[in-house]
């Protein structure tokens, strides 16, 4: 019954798994996203996971857990990971947790704007 207010699209191409999250990421939605994304990771065993956050309007520390959990899993299979285009409020919480010391944060859209 419960509307989860989130979701994702993905593309897989030559070892690179691109996942674009959208909506609000909290503990409620992270629980659903986690299962679906992990199924993809187990299936594709990507060399690189690109997590596009440009469509995420809200994220709390459960999102940090979601990101770090996927990072660990991809690393288990020898892959790497990057975060793409977080909006300003999402960047704020990524910075608070010092995520960029562990996972690259790339601004593909910000770069284009300049």
């Amino acid at each position, binding site marked *: 019954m419960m*509307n989860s207010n989130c979701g994702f699209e993905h593309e897989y191409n030559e070892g690179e798994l691109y996942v674009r999250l959208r909506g609000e990421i909290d503990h*409620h939605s*992270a629980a659903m996203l986690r299962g679906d994304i992990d199924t993809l990771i187990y299936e594709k065993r990507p060399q690189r996971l690109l997590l596009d956050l440009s469509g995420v309007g*809200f*994220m709390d520390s459960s999102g*940090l*857990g979601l990101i770090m*959990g996927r990072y660990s899993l991809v690393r288990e299979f020898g892959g790497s990971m990057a975060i793409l285009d977080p909006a300003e409020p999402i960047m704020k919480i990524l910075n608070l*947790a010092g995520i960029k010391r562990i996972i690259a944060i790339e601004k593909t859209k910000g770069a284009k704007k300049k």
Partner: protein
Amino acid sequence: MRNKGFSSVVRNEMKLTLPSYSVNEGVARAVVAAFCAQLDPAASELADVKCAVSEAVTNCIVHAYRDSVGSIYITVKILEGNGVRIEVRDRGCGIADVKAARQPLFTTDPSGERSGMGFTVMENFMDILRVRSKPGKGTVVIMFKRFAGRGENK
């Protein structure tokens, strides 16, 4: 004054009770945002408040009532001078060592899916964070934030 710089004059007050279902994380932050809108906060200020509320409510669901369903009591007060006071209270398991729990990266969650950053977010996104807890009795989180004040003369 006890709450540095925050007035104790209450201009408006909302009380909200929700059961500890995870769908109510989104409900709680939307409700608090709707109530705070009367102060005409900046989008970034509202985003901070929503995130802090989400953390406090999620903790009630994930930790306080881990193996059960209980009530979450939220009180929001609009204070004189563009401030808000937000209280999130549960009657769950409580926290044995609050000081340790407030440290960044500290978590008791065994799943590996919690970041241990909840209190750190509340502390950084709000102006004041107070946590009181009694093991077996429950936990109260009290947060204050002042908005820049575009709305004062509206």
